């Protein structure tokens, strides 16, 4: 069985604050892939990042950064200096032979 847990249901911040979204996953597979997706109010799912289980290198892309730690089965996502346009639902996902999503975290950035 595999599972993705996003414990934070909603996060509300003021613009320019940093936001960290937690993701914890469970799988018995040794080879797997992790993803983050963003779903803005328009509804489409926007791919943000993919990581495979052998690549624990953290990554920074503009205001986004990701922290992958196999030892704690976590793949956390940070938005630095948040903006109103970052308001969306963010999903963490795990792929082995199937693709499973967490319940999502709704981020609201207030001006």
């Amino acid at each position, binding site marked *: 069985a595999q599972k993705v847990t996003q414990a934070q249901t909603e996060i509300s911040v003021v613009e320019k604050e940093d936001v960290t979204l937690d993701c914890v996953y469970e799988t018995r597979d040794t080879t797997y892939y992790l993803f983050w997706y963003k779903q803005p109010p328009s509804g*489409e799912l926007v791919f943000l990042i993919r990581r*495979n289980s052998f690549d624990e290198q953290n990554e920074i892309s503009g205001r986004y950064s990701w922290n992958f730690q196999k030892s704690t089965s976590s793949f956390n996502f940070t938005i630095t200096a948040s903006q109103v346009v970052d308001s969306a639902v963010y*999903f963490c996902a795990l*792929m082995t032979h*199937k*693709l499973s*999503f*967490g*319940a*999502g975290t709704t981020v609201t950035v207030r001006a």
Partner: protein
Amino acid sequence: DVKVTQSSRYLVKRTGEKVFLECVQDMDHENMFWYRQDPGLGLRLIYFSYDVKMKEKGDIPEGYSVSREKKERFSLILESASTNQTSMYLCASTRQGSTTEAFFGQGTRLTVV
């Protein structure tokens, strides 16, 4: 431009009707998935397929079936629609081995009355 296309954006069906949701991808992907999305529950996996005529149950398969007769097409079937199947349905596809991300269709908002 890669694409996953779902046949309908909005559907309204009556309780007890048989409902077909169609999904077509043009990327020659092996894996295809059907999810339903409900507020606070995220995307829940209904069924998936990793090859033509192959299918596996996801986490919430009850009340649904699927068909994959051709590689590019994956159909979700509600044998007898019920009001608790009112939801947003999303189709996705990926390449075997997940060398790319999953690509999603635009979603079908199904209302069962």
